[in-house]
């Protein structure tokens, strides 16, 4: 895959006089701060309001008051170390937590990932579908069928994403939680050992397919190929949602690949040594 065309279209297609926009984006990236526990959560949200859906997944909602991250996490019985990792991963694409920071229960990680899945399937996807329906209605009879194509295409994407998530929820996560229980109890039942032999988390890494391609296609269909409508407001909203979902899924996959998988690999090794 050529590096420019597909993943970073903005870097390439932009006209020359648009150069300053690129620079502004880069400057923001460079100036990313590390979010720490003694910062006020309100200040953090002012700095990066895209984190609102992320804190929601910890059961923390707007109207959380004036406390520091540590205080608010305590109030909501959230593991502070884990909260900071997740929020920094989302805030700064370059961030990768150091090993010593990763001492939190796997259970909280799985719970977090589950809540994120719910957010995708129950909020984001329906919202985007609603917007595409609205766009179809506004498009006039002549183009209705064309927008229906886009809708069907997105539904297909929804099925793929749902299947992917189902597999994680019904096979990967229960396995992970079970491993942690085994380590706590100190003895490994044969059942678990057998399962470890037939399925290791390393396989999961391999099967972690890229469900993002369709999102990418849909963005281009809207930007380049679907017929123009009088007012771009709805299409703009769809694009905002698509970019947002895409970014969220990317960080989600990063958390799974860079935090969940290594942690589980370590647990697998511990259990093998127990016997």
């Amino acid at each position, binding site marked *: 895959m*050529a590096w420019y065309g597909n993943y970073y279209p903005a870097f*390439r297609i932009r006209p020359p006089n648009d150069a300053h926009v690129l620079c502004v984006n880069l400057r923001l990236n460079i100036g990313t701060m590390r979010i720490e526990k003694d910062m006020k959560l309100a200040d953090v949200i002012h700095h990066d309001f895209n984190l609102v859906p992320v804190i929601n997944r910890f059961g923390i909602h707007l109207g959380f008051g004036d406390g520091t991250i540590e205080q608010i996490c305590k109030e909501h019985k959230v593991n502070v170390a884990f909260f900071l990792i997740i929020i920094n991963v989302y805030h700064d694409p370059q961030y990768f937590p150091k090993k010593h920071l990763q001492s939190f229960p796997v259970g909280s990680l799985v719970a977090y990932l589950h809540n994120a899945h719910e957010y995708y399937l129950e909020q984001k996807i329906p919202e985007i579908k609603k917007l595409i329906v609205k766009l179809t209605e506004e498009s006039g009879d002549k183009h209705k069928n064309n927008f229906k194509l886009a809708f069907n295409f997105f539904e297909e994407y929804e099925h793929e994403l749902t299947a992917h998530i189902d597999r994680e929820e019904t096979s990967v996560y229960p396995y992970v939680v079970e491993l942690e229980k085994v380590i706590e109890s100190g003895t490994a039942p044969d059942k678990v050992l057998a399962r470890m032999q037939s399925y290791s988390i390393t396989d999961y890494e391999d099967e972690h397919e890229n469900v993002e391609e369709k999102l990418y296609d849909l963005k281009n269909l809207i930007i380049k190929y679907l017929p123009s409508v009088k007012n771009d407001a709805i299409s703009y909203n769809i694009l905002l949602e698509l970019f947002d979902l895409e970014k969220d899924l990317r960080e989600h996959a990063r958390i799974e690949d860079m935090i969940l998988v290594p942690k589980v690999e370590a647990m697998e090794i511990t259990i093998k040594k127990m016997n």
Partner: protein
Amino acid sequence: MAGKITIVLIDHSYLVRSGMENLLREFPEVSLTEVFDGSEKHLVEKTMSLKPDFIIINPKSIKDSLNSFVLSLGNDALLIGLVDEHTPPVIRSRFKHILTITDNKYDLLNNMHKLMGTNSKDKSGKHENHSLSERETTVLKHITQGMTNQEIAEKLFLSVHTVTTHRKNITKKLGIKTVSGLTVYALLNKIIDMGEVNQQ
């Protein structure tokens, strides 16, 4: 990851090397394969064995003749000269591309960005017409009918390799990767009609 742009950096100054490393971090698709300070033995061989897409090199960091160094690197990699405002034109002219270390950050980033776009692997030209050729349109049609590369190759009397190349070019031109995305495109542009899709 395939498609990563690999770079070898040669500069004798630690500060410049770290600065370049920092700058290149702004390009997610770039990987800095190796950094040399110029004093290494067999520098040419070491550099060539890495097969980089670009070599960023400070002419002052080369102890021996710059000319022979440049010549022995051949044409495979794109040389980028790391120069300052005092570098004489005769040295500058040895390089296809120039980065001026005294430039401000945004000029550096923009120049770098332009250079990345001239990556030798992608000579296919960013300015070329993005509409599909007749052949590509035919291939697209068959893709949307659910045919595999093998089947398309047989049908059109082409090698599988050629079909794969067509496919890559279609995706690059249209910015659409998935078969169903391509199908939507083909329908929107009346390359196929609804009836053909429903037959499957």
